[in-house]
């Protein structure tokens, strides 16, 4: 399984994602892929990592979405390749229109970094199959703009399609309906504010994030088996 971790100027969780993949996905061969790359053919999972791409100086993710690599991400997403956007990666995916809504400033106005309990609302996605329905998992957050917002119509659609994958048990940022992570309609693009790559070992405070990576590997294997 080939995994690409995108690197934009200002990405700062790219190495963490690489390490998490190396430590959890036994089949994973992972590479850091530069933002100027125009072709992502051959990758089975594309991770858009956290950080402050381009300093987040205009709006989080607003400049990164115009990087050449984002066209390739859109193409890959269209083709059904798994795309996982974490934190700033989630913000980039919404700015790029690959996921609906927007991440706004936390209602408390301050950056927040701490462990957070997420409820798994949809264990039937490629990213969450190793979790149980409504399981509470400990995945840390670290963001200043994680307040998910969308209009009523979009929210209704997210609910109707079962696109809300994770919700906060104790909403830290004012997110609409406690939303912490969503998938696209096709179910192959997931965006989430919490950091599963920081929860891959008890020494880091939680290993609940491991199963997100193993879920993806499982989904890929199944898909791969079907193709053969």
């Amino acid at each position, binding site marked *: 399984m080939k995994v690409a971790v995108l690197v934009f100027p200002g990405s700062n969780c790219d190495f963490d994602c690489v390490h998490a993949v190396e430590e959890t996905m036994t089949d994973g061969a992972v590479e850091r892929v530069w933002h100027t790359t125009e072709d992502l053919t051959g990758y089975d999972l594309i991770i858009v990592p956290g950080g402050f791409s381009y*300093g987040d100086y205009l709006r989080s993710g607003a400049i990164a979405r115009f990087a050449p690599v984002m066209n390739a991400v859109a193409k890959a997403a269209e083709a059904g390749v798994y795309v996982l956007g974490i934190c700033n990666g989630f913000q980039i995916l919404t700015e790029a229109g690959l996921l609906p809504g927007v991440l706004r400033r936390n209602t408390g106005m301050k950056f927040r970094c701490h462990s957070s309990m997420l409820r798994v609302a949809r264990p039937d996605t490629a990213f969450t199959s190793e979790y149980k329905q409504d399981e509470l998992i400990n995945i840390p957050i*670290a963001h200043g703009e994680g307040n998910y917002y969308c209009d009523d119509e979009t929210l209704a659609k997210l609910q109707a399609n079962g696109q809300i994958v994770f919700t906060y048990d104790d909403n830290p940022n004012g997110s609409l309906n406690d939303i912490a992570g969503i998938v696209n309609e096709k179910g192959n693009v997931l965006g989430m504010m919490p950091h599963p790559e920081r929860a891959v070992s008890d020494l880091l405070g939680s290993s609940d994030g491991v199963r997100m990576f193993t879920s993806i590997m499982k989904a890929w294997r199944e898909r791969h088996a079907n193709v053969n």
Partner: protein
Amino acid sequence: MQTLTKNTLDSLEQGKINMSKEPTPAQIASERIYATMGVSDSEYDLICTILGRKPNYTEIGVFSVMWSEHCAYKNSKPLLKRFPTTGERVLMGPGEGAGIVDIGDGQAVCFKIESHNHPSAVEPYQGAATGVGGIIRDIFSMGARPIATLNSLRFGKLTDERVRYLFEHVVSGIAGYGNCIGIPTVGGEVMFDSSYEGNPLVNAMCVGLIDHEDIQRGVASGVGNPVYYVGPATGRDGIHGATFASEELTEESEAKRSAVQVGDPFMEKLVMEACLELIQSGIVIGIQDMGAAGLTCSSAEMASKAGNGLELNLNEVPQREQGMTPYEMMLSESQERMLFVIEEHNEPIAMEIFERWGVICRKVGRVTDDGRLRLVYGSEVVADMPVRGLVDECPVYEKPSQVPAYYTKNEAVDTNRYEEVTDVNDALLKVLASPTVASKEWVYRQYDSMVRASTSVAPGSDAAVVLVRGTRKALAMTTDCNGRFTYLDPYMGGRIAVAEAARNVVCSGAEPLAITDNLNFGNPEKPENFWQMEQSVDGMAEACRHFDTPVIGGNVSLYNENAKDAIYPTPVVGMVGLVHDTDHITTQGFKQAGDVVILLGDTKAELGGSEFQLVIHGVTEGRPPVLELDTELRLQKTVLKLIQDGLVKSAHDVSEGGLAVAIAESAISGGIGAEVEVSAEGLRTDVALFSESQSRIVLSVSPEAADAVVEACTQNEVPVQRIGVVGGDRISIQVNGQQAIDVAQHEAERVWKDAIPCLMQ
């Protein structure tokens, strides 16, 4: 090489090729313009002797920053020599950007602390942010990958509106910079005392990891080699920042707002990645960051360390503003800039790296063999100074020192004369709610403490612990200094600062390695202040020798004064320790019901400088606790061994607030109560609970391990007492058979956690 002709020499002397509005050399002399730059009459005369003529405006500017306390340590040098700076593991001591200590397997840890007190006092957000940016550059310019930062902060009382403003914005500035660049802010300390009102202390520490073969030095070697400028263009930011840092804060400082630079963490992230890649490529001969005094200090120091000269072509320096003079370019403190030397034929390798990262890199000069720092602008030489004169010939002052009256007076103060506090329950809640003791979650929740996914112990325990990827090792790190102790007795306070840092590191399961120090003091011209400095340094140096934790670098910040007085002398100690195996990582919280609580160390009647004395009796007076070095070392060695043997569940150093607070903190962190019974012969209940006697640690251990722990302590002559059991939902403490404290664990937690958020609302 361009040499100074008779003609240009004459022109320089007469100021002809000076920028039109700049004062001429003659005016600088007759109007004593140098004095406004902090250069004394005798120093000016010496500069004239060194140059063999009168300096022009650019030259006197360059001398003034190179000869400031910040760059030349002219008032502190004799004291700094008293520190032990070598050791078996020390790979790089003071003198370079940061010190480096071996941690085995070809790896080393690189760390340093630095102050940004004065900039933070006038513009707290940018002052703190650029402080963080500066210390990070110090670490990666050594070739190390920064893995964590810490901060040691001091403010006035939070009831004051201006103090709240400073506190709020300093914290956001640290968060804004650290979070964006992606280096976790893992710890530090915050203390509040009216002594710091108007002059907060903002000390930032950065820790990096490095392989031995990657260690860099800031040297401009190899005559003829080109010198490159890296980073954003130079503007007129922070001109005379180094001089600014070497002056007292006055009402006028507010008007000096232009002296504060603006940080760009995004740019620094790019510069950092590009520079680390450049270093990895193996072509770097010398590299140094442009910190205080910008281009001046970096170029002069790099030339000096190689025993060479440097010629800079200022036409090539990227400029953000129009019409910048050589003076302005040399003294600008625009952020995120670096200077490096490579061999000319390697230029394409460097350029490819910087282009890919989108960072400006420009050749601005050349290494020369004549030992001079020469600046060319237009087609003229606009300054020509001997490097040695700039770097080595600044006069060093042995300041007079005098015992302050308050110190003598305090000798007679009996800190046991206060009427006994009978409601110790209430006293505990008051001390827990004191901002110095209270939870700092409001602060550290704003910091990304987990980026890099290596933080094992985040802020909120005795020391932070960061894993060393690919090994079973980890690094424990902390900053410590109790300014009240150093005020009451600078010598003892200096010892305590080092001992407490080491104790915190040991409680986390690590072996103390070395320290970096940030000496924050008042105006050294006042003999009483100089005495405080001298005494503190002696106390620290003695403790460092005793614990074999050398000083591998640091920073001096003087002239920390407000309208009333000097701040408390605050020599902050930043310490790093090595956790040999991640199994040894230990935190302060109680772990499990039924575990046995054990107190190591003796409790004496020592309330001088304690939190209890200030919160309950409203004073800071008397003598601080006595720290006995052998006792402390025995305690630390014993506890570290017990932890390494797997016998300890939790360990917490007894510090501010004494035993009562230490037990409450272990209970709060663990989310579980404890029932404790202490015997303290001859001590009043309130004294036994709140005395801040040194060399004490509270452990919790499994019932099966308890006997072995007591036995080991007895054997090592460490006073030991089984004092209770973990469990239940109350914190209950009996003293000498009498019930003293009984409070619900969640009530203590609420008071402790809500204190700062309530004050900040």
